[in-house]
Structure formats: structure tokens, C-alpha cells
């Protein structure tokens, strides 16, 4: 067998957490001074207080407040393989891609890329608003590693793909956001590297254009190029890739056929049984302000269940502790189907009674009623999240619960087969005999 086109050997990357790196000259002088006189560094003292990673965690680095974003990751990829990389937020997917695209260096280990490599971590990198569409095609193409002669050759094709023929002499700052994205992706889609590293850039643009891009990438695959594709969109991953790598906490969990990898990823972590409870406060998701206690799925009879009748309402009950008064807290969840697509993500700001009201320390419950006759049958997972507006995320926990919506037919007498569609709402129909 030929040498693999990508070889990754024990690749590790250590990140520092928090503000431990000196950010001003004063900090540097202070650290140096402390080291000279053998005193404890102020920066590290501040750091220790905010210890996020406990020592027992295998992701914890050699020093306090360091974390292995990647730890001893090894795999190899043969030419022509299209590999999907999946995993939770913070699993190390983006770090891996950043190292392979030479944006940053690994802490240890090495990787060999045997081919011309282009990375697509974002579309439209380096677009300048004052330049025209045409000028930006050249600039962006060159930034992505194309030679000028190559862009000359593909220029018309890129313009046609982006559907911006009329606006080629217009500065891109006057473009609509749709045109902007189309142009940006058109340049990227015409890269012809032997190895393509793609982050979730497909999450942009309208649906028709996304399809066009997916098609273009499928074409790329057929031409024998090697693609590493990081995504949360399980449909896209399933559609594009034959093989997958599931990264979890900086390690490779599974490397194999894409179907197996996706299935393993989706079923992991989501407990069956309709209830998830954190007994130990320290381990519960959250921070010093808020911690999750219990998350439950209740069926229409108020019983905990992980198997629901699609015709009837069900409830998502979230119990949590608040330790400091919080204003503007939004507790909510995201409902994901088996393909990992977010169906909806409601939050408790809908409760008018608590609008603008402060939540004093104490135990709270937020409960959401999900109407029956809306979701299609299948497996779903729930991700819990809370944030403060304005302010930012307070907690985030993927795959908290997993449940099934059972195929039970419609409200009246619908045939018991599964209808196509992401959702399957019970809509009002009316039939008249006209003649």
C-alpha cells in the first residue's frame, strides 16, 4: 500500500487556561521579579483559585490550569478518503484542524502531510470590503494558496458559481450577505488541493446554495482528493464521508465507517430512562453561579419516561441551584434529532411572570411543555444550556438525555407509517366534494 497521505503520530496540544500568560509588560516584570526572589507568582495564585480542571481529569496538563486539547492523537488517512471528524464542543476537532493547517504548532508529536494542502476554516478569509468582487477573488484565492495563473484560469467559473456576474466590479461592502457568502464559498470551492481541511463552513448561506456546495464537495471527493471534514451536521457528515473519527476530550474514540462512528457518538452520554440527576454538586454542569440538579422528560401523565407517544404533549423539566442573584438568566434546551440537527431550542424567557425578575439564590425548576402532534417519530437528544443576556453562557451540557418519539399514528386515524420530514405536525385539513 502506498504511504498514507496524512500521517498523525501522537499529536498533542497543551493549552493554558485563563489569564495565566502575561498580557501586559507589568505582568511580565512582576513574574520575573517573583521568580528572581523565589516568591509565589501572583498570576499563578489567581489562576489556582479558578481551577477549572481537577487533577484527576486525564485531560489535565502537567501544570495547574493547563489542559490537553489533544492528547496522543494518532491516525492515518489514505489518498482519496473523505473523513468526517465529529465530537462535542471542546473535543479538540478545531485544534486538530488548526495544527494540520499549520496555524499553530503542536506541543508534541508530529504530522506529515504528503500533498498540497488547503484549509478552509472560514470562508472569505481576508476579504477586503473596499475591493471589488473580482479583486477579492484574487486576494482570497491567493490567501488560500492559489497561484495567480490558477485564479486567472478559474475566474469565470468562480464568478458563475457565485452567481454574481453583474456585481463583479462592485466593492463587496455593497454586497448582500448572501452574495458575500456565495462569492466566498465559490473561491473556496475552486481550490484544487490534494488535501482539503474543512471546518464547519457549510453552516452558512441559504439552503439551495448549501446543497450546491455539498454537491461541489462531493465532486471534489470523486476526483480522488483527500478531505478532512469537521462538522456538527451529522447529515452532511453522513452524506459526504465514508469514514469518520470521533474525538472526545482530545482523544480518538473511534476511527471507522462513518455510520458506526455517528451511531456511537449519538448514543454516548445520553442516558436512557428519561431522567438525569447529578448527586455530586462539584460534578454537576454549571459554574459558581448555577448548577444543574436534575433533568427529566415527563410524559402526558406526568411520569418520567424516555419513550413518548407522538400524539400527546410532553414536558422537559430542568431543576437547578442558583448561588448568586441572577438577572436575565435564560434556562433552556436544544432538541436534536438522530442526525444531530437542532429541531428547536426554546428557553424559559417565555415565562412573562419572570420577565426582568431577579432570581435569588435557591433551588429552581423550569418546565417546558412540548406540544404533541408535532415531532416526527425517532430518537432525540436534549442539550441543556443557560445564559445571561447580556453576559454570555453560564452552562452547556451536550447529550443530557435521549428519548424516543414512538410512531403511533395521527390524532385521528392516520396510517401508522412514518411520514417523511424532520417534523410531522398534525395540521388541519379539510376535504370537500366539489362535483
Amino acid at each position: 500500500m502506498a504511504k498514507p497521505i496524512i500521517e498523525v503520530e501522537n499529536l498533542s496540544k497543551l493549552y493554558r487556561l485563563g489569564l495565566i500568560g502575561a498580557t501586559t509588560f507589568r505582568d511580565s516584570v512582576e513574574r520575573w521579579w517573583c521568580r528572581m526572589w523565589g516568591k509565589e507568582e501572583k498570576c499563578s495564585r489567581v489562576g489556582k483559585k479558578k481551577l477549572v480542571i481537577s487533577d484527576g481529569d486525564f485531560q489535565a496538563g502537567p501544570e495547574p490550569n493547563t489542559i490537553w486539547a489533544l492528547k496522543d492523537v494518532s491516525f492515518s488517512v489514505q489518498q482519496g478518503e473523505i473523513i468526517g471528524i465529529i465530537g462535542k464542543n471542546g473535543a479538540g476537532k478545531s485544534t486538530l484542524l488548526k495544527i494540520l493547517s499549520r496555524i499553530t504548532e503542536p506541543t508534541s508529536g508530529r504530522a506529515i502531510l504528503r500533498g498540497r494542502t488547503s484549509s478552509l476554516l472560514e470562508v472569505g478569509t481576508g476579504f477586503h470590503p473596499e475591493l471589488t468582487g473580482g479583486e477579492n477573488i484574487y486576494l482570497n484565492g491567493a490567501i488560500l494558496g492559489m497561484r495567480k495563473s490558477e485564479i486567472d484560469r478559474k475566474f469565470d467559473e468562480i464568478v458563475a458559481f457565485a452567481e454574481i456576474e453583474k456585481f463583479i466590479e462592485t466593492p463587496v461592502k455593497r454586497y448582500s450577505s448572501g452574495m458575500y457568502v456565495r462569492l466566498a464559498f465559490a473561491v473556496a470551492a475552486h481550490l484544487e488541493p490534494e488535501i482539503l481541511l474543512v471546518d464547519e463552513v457549510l453552516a452558512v448561506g441559504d439552503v439551495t446554495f448549501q446543497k450546491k456546495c455539498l454537491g461541489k464537495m462531493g465532486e471534489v471527493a470523486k476526483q480522488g482528493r483527500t478531505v478532512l471534514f469537521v462538522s456538527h451536521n451529522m447529515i452532511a457528515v453522513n452524506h459526504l464521508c465514508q469514514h469518520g473519527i470521533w474525538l472526545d476530550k482530545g482523544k480518538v474514540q473511534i476511527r471507522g465507517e462513518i455510520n458506526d462512528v455517528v451511531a456511537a457518538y449519538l448514543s454516548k452520554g445520553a442516558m436512557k430512562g428519561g431522567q438525569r440527576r447529578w448527586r455530586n454538586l462539584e460534578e454537576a454542569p454549571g459554574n459558581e453561579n448555577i448548577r444543574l440538579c436534575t433533568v427529566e422528560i415527563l410524559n402526558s401523565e406526568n411520569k418520567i419516561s424516555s419513550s413518548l407517544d407522538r400524539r400527546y404533549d410532553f414536558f422537559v423539566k430542568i431543576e437547578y441551584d442558583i448561588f448568586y442573584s441572577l438577572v436575565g438568566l435564560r434556562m433552556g434546551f436544544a432538541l436534536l434529532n438522530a442526525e444531530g440537527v437542532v429541531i428547536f431550542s426554546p428557553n424559559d424567557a417565555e415565562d412573562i411572570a419572570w420577565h426582568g425578575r431577579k432570581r435569588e439564590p435557591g433551588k429552581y425548576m423550569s418546565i417546558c411543555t412540548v406540544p404533541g402532534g408535532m415531532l416526527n417519530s425517532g430518537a432525540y437528544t436534549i442539550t441543556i444550556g443557560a445564559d445571561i443576556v447580556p453576559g454570555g453562557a453560564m452552562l452547556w451540557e451536550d447529550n443530557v438525555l435521549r428519548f424516543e418519539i414512538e410512531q403511533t399514528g395521527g390524532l385521528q386515524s392516520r396510517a401508522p407509517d412514518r411520514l417523511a420530514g424532520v417534523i410531522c405536525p398534525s395540521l388541519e385539513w379539510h376535504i370537500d366534494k366539489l362535483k
Partner: protein
Amino acid sequence: MKANSSNQSPYEIVIEPNRKWFYIDWRGILQYRDLLFLLVRRDFIAKYKQTILGPTWFILQPLLTTIVFTIFFHRVAKVSTDGLPPHLFYLCSLMVWNYFANCLKSTANSLVANTNIFSKVYFPRLIVPLSSVISNLFTFGIQLGTFLVFYLYFKFFLQGSENIQPNLLMIIVVLPLLLVQAAAFSLGVGLWISALTTKYRDLVFLMGFLTQLWLYATPVIYPVSAIPAHWRFIMAINPMAAIVDFYRYAFFGTLALSSKYLFLSVVTTMVVLVSGLLAFNKVERTFVDTI
């Protein structure tokens, strides 16, 4: 990170930590040379789009400064210009100084200002400061043209121009080399500062002030003859002193620095450039992690 050319594919890339400290990806820079020129073009177009006067600003800017300098330093403060017409004296010095200051300003910012690009795509980072140094050459060219118009007018159409003694050989042979030296020196200082600003943002605020001070430490608004002979050695450590002075010597024939100072300035330039390249090279590998 290093590129290895010895194996079968010309593009084989080995990604490793702790690359040798003197390793610079020259081959990569060569591969991305088209990007270099496109960035130069971008700088030029983007700078003056949507300004009414466009590139005329390149001409107006030194002219206005010259008028201000003539009023304050020549008329009010009575700073000597070695008997030369003050406008010409300032215009000549400012043309060289501005090139240095503009290059310094744009190269010093190159890592922090382009973080959004550098954190998304790889190309040899050195391309960005290099493109700044090149794109500022256009400004210099226009200002040189402006200066030459005034210079020829003074030389051939006005009385009292006997003490303007141009040295043609110097103008044609040495001045381009001195310009390259100014480019190299500003690049060296700029690389140092851009490497340091990734860690110490304070420098961003200091930069404007430092450039201002540097202007006064360089014989731009005063001739070298105004400096006592035993201090000139100190002054000449700053390579810009010799560069500005030799520009004036070439056009006006007023030498005050001996060529040993020129040699000193070349040595300083080399040291700053090489150390700047190394400092930049060390920082660019992982700066996106901490910025």
C-alpha cells in the same frame, strides 16, 4: 513546522514542535509570491478608495508638514538648515523619514492587525510585513517625484542655488541602496515590535510616541552639523541618521557624517533585521493561541 523537500511529493509538509530557531520558510515565501503582490495592490487600492483627493494625499501630506516645519523650526525656532532653502531641506529629509515611519507603523502592526486571517489560514506570516514595506515604496516614489519637481525648480530657476551641489553618482547608485537599507531597518524594527505586541499590547500605544521621539533623534529637522562632533557617534548608532544625512548629501552636497558612520549604520541595520526576523519567527508559530 518545517517543509521537507527531499521526499517524493514536492509538497510534503512535516508538522513538528520546536522547529530550529533559525529556520525560516523561504521556500514558502517564494510559493506565495503572488499573494505578496496582491497584498501590495490591496494596500494601495484600499488606502485611498473613497477619499476625494486619492493618491494626491501622498503629495499633500509632506508638503503640509514642510510648511509647518518651515514656520516653526526655521522661522520661529531658528534651527539651521546649513544654508539651504528650508523647504527643500525638510522635503528631502521628510521623504526618507516618512518612508521609514510608514513602514514601521504598518509592519509593527502586522501580526495583531491580521489575527483574524492568521487564525484561519496558513501562509508564511512574513508575507504581510514584506508587503507593507513594498507598498510603502509607492508612496515614497510619489514623494520623490514631488521633491524632484521642487528641487529642479530651485536649482535652475531661482537665484542663490549655488550651494546646491548634487552628486549624480550618489543619487543614482547609493540612494537606492540606502532606500533598501531604510526598508530593511524598518522591517527589522517592525518585526521586533510586532513580535512583542502579541504579548504586550501596551506597545501599540507607545508606538506613536516612540516614532515622534525618534524623529527628533534623527537629523530630519536639523542638519548633522548642529550636533557636536563627539556626539555624532552616538547619533549614528541610529541608522536613520546616516540614511537621511546621505540623502541630503547626494542632493545638496552637505556632508557632515564620515563614511565610517555609514558602515556603523549598515551593521546596526543587519543586527536589527536578523534579530527581528528571528524574534518574529519564534512568535508567529504559536501566537494565535495566546492572542
